[in-house]
């Protein structure tokens, strides 16, 4: 990896700020004549930052170790990349000759373009100020380990290349997150026969792929939540999502019509004609579950990144997270489970993923005590009334339907030996 040190610095900084980050994201001409054939450049560090109104904001990080590099030129370069990706802000990190510090006016110029222009020696100050007081130096994740999961793994298992290639190159050049949603599932389905759930490195790739899927899922959740809040009408959510995912109702109807004719021509059944996402009902359930706590949707990719790296490095699962919210973990588990089912990975993949999550959830479930001995709690007596039909000697009286008031059996209390109170009913 070139400029590895600077990229690692920026990566850790972005991750420590709670953003989803990647290094060396290739840039292609989207929607061009030759698809992803011709590489234009790459983004040194690409980050997605959750906004307060349930959207992703793209942040571009540019690193340069060449000492003679012009700061202003570099800022303009970064700005064009930001425009290409509709980024909100950028950081340019430069290594400079100590005798040629960056001009204050150049920094101001950069600021006007939404870019922080920082010299490498000053980065530590910036880091500690933005992540007061200790910065990101002690953040445990490294870009190198991430590369092992995302790139190196497919070199050892070439048949996993379609998924790796998608995650590393194509995913971030999709024009929108709805294509990302569909294509990430497609990429997963391509390698469904190659995933071995007994291997930690394969499980790590599954979690990483689910993380990419969950970026797009969060975008869907944010939009749907603003439209409907927490709807319990399946029809509304169904309509809203199909319209979103396929780029509008007309587009959906057109593609659904084409697909239906293809299936019919191939002799397929009625069920197979539906062009919505795999396991559509489960997807609706997943989106609706996310709308219970939509801001967590924008933390799921980061959570699954930590999970992937913990599995890869054989560390205790999500142990580095300090008291994570149980709802966040639950939504993470549901997201991974859906992704695995939709990609048709071996069933053991889901079993293993759920086991990892449920064990971690147990320690943070609402009401779970972190210590063995519980503090003294008030003891509440449970009172119940037990009914057994009492029969009179004369069955005929009963058959006549006369309403009788019958004595009830005495109330039972939860603790034996306590005097039975008068019946209250």
């Amino acid at each position, binding site marked *: 990896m070139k400029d590895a040190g600077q990229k690692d610095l920026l990566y850790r900084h972005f991750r420590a700020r709670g953003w989803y980050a990647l290094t060396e994201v290739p840039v292609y001409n989207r929607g061009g004549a030759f698809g992803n054939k011709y590489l234009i450049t790459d983004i040194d560090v690409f980050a997605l930052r959750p906004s307060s109104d349930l959207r992703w904001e793209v942040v571009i990080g540019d690193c340069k170790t060449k000492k003679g590099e012009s700061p202003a030129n570099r800022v303009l370069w970064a700005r064009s990349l930001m425009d290409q990706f509709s980024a909100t802000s950028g950081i340019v990190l430069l290594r400079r000759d100590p005798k040629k510090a960056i001009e204050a006016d150049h920094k101001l110029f950069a600021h006007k373009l939404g870019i922080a222009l920082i010299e490498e020696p000053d980065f530590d100050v910036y880091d500690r100020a933005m992540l007061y007081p200790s910065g990101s130096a002690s953040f445990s994740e490294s870009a190198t380990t991430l590369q092992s999961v995302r790139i190196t793994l497919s070199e050892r298992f070439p048949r996993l290349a379609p998924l790796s290639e998608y995650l590393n190159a194509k995913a971030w050049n999709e024009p929108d997150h709805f294509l990302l949603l569909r294509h990430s599932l497609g990429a997963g389905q391509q390698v469904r026969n190659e995933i071995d759930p007994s291997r930690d490195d394969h499980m790590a790739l599954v979690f990483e792929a689910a993380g990419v899927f969950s970026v797009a899922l969060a975008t869907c959740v944010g939009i749907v939540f603003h439209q409907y809040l927490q709807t319990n009408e399946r029809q509304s959510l169904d309509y809203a999502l199909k319209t979103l995912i396929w780029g509008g109702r007309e587009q959906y109807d057109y593609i659904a019509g084409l697909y239906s004719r293809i299936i019919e021509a191939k002799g397929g059944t009625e069920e197979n004609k539906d062009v919505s996402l795999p396991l559509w009902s489960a997807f609706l359930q997943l989106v609706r579950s996310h709308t219970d706590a939509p801001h967590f949707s924008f933390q799921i990719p980061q959570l699954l990144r930590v999970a992937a790296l913990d599995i890869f490095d054989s560390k205790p699962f999500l142990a580095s997270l300090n008291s994570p919210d149980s709802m966040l973990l639950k939504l993470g588990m549901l997201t991974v489970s859906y992704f695995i089912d939709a990609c048709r990975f071996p069933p053991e993949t889901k079993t293993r993923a759920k086991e990892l999550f449920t064990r971690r959830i147990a320690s943070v479930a609402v009401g779970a005590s972190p210590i063995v001995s519980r503090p003294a709690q008030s003891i509440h007596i449970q009172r119940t009334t037990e009914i057994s039909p009492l029969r009179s000697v004369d069955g005929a009286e009963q058959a006549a*339907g006369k*309403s009788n008031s019958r004595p009830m059996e005495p109330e039972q209390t939860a603790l034996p030996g306590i005097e039975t109170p008068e019946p209250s009913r």
Partner: protein
Amino acid sequence: MLQNMGPEEVALRAQDIVVCMERTRSTEYDALNNLGLAVRMAVHLRGAPPVDFELLKRVAVHVLNFQTAEVRPVVTLLADAEFVDLHTEGTTIKSVIPNIPFFEDLYQNVGTVALASPLTEAEQLTLEITRRLAESPVARDSLASLGAEARLMNDVLEIGNEGGFILTRRARGRDILVSPTYFGENEAAYADLVAAKGAGRVKKVLNALRSIQGWPLVLIERGKLPSGVTLDADELAVLKALAGDGFVRPPAIQTSHHGTNYFLFGPRPGVARLPLNKKAVFEAAMALVAAVRQGQLLPAAYAIKSPPAILRALRDKGFIGANSEALEQYQQVALLKVGRLEKHGAMHRFVLNTERPENYEAIDLALNLLRGDEVQAHPEEEVVLALRKGDAYVEALIGRKHLVNENPVPLNEEDRVELETLLYGGRT
């Protein structure tokens, strides 16, 4: 004995029974009890974060009226239905991770799993009686047609009365059985109506009313009902009686072109279906239905073609487009704080108050009413909060519940009349 009752309906009725029974238990009910409690727990776990099992048990026992020994089998039943995931250490359940479906039929799924174990004769009879009472109060002696042994019938009715899911009201010399779940208000008036007109007739009218919720009384009086709804003169008289003395006054809208119009609704659900704190939401839903029915059936100029579409637009866009009739049409709705009327030239538009989440609930309930669907059970808000906030909140909640349970039960109408008869008996 269970005639054409699918798992969904069995689960629904079982839930109604256990909610009414509160802390009371019968030795005759086992599977029925578990099923009802499972549905009750599932309704409260929907959308909840993972919960420690001990906390869930405390909430279930002290707030949802479970017995301690019932919690584990119910949670296991929910796990079998794949509604929850359990984290266990050996045989000990440590935490419960809910994944209750929002759109699939909760009742159908739980019912199907639970009915793998057959129901006893007493349970089947109970469900069948409850189903009949859901449609209309019935005379006690009419239940002989079920073909059950007299002794069994008496046992079940006794359990029903003691357990609170069957009310027996005396009317015109007959014992009339009423379900408090479906006839939560005016049970005496309904009992009298059934005694006078017959359960069959009342049942037909109530079924018709469920499909035409919010229909204007003036059109009913003229015999103008939608196609597919045919009622004879006697049945129309029953329908009109539902707007009369003894019954809750139906919602009304005052108009300059048509006077005051009343809009008829079916029986309001009891506490088992609609907690007391949701009554205001239900009132708002009825007001919304009345407003769109006014526009649909008694407009001054242009009729609304699709009331549900208007309500969906209100929910999704946040307003209903300006029109000349909005001021009168939505005034009652505005008074209930569902929204406000904004002037647009000579017209008004109705704008939803989006800051109150209960207004969205009211719109969803109104759409439910227009579809003729039963009101589904609502979770108790404090239980929902307790499952999210943990120990401190649960302790406070349990303490409050104990205080609340000290309140005396107010006299019902029948007891009050008996007491008055006793007090004034013998005076000239």
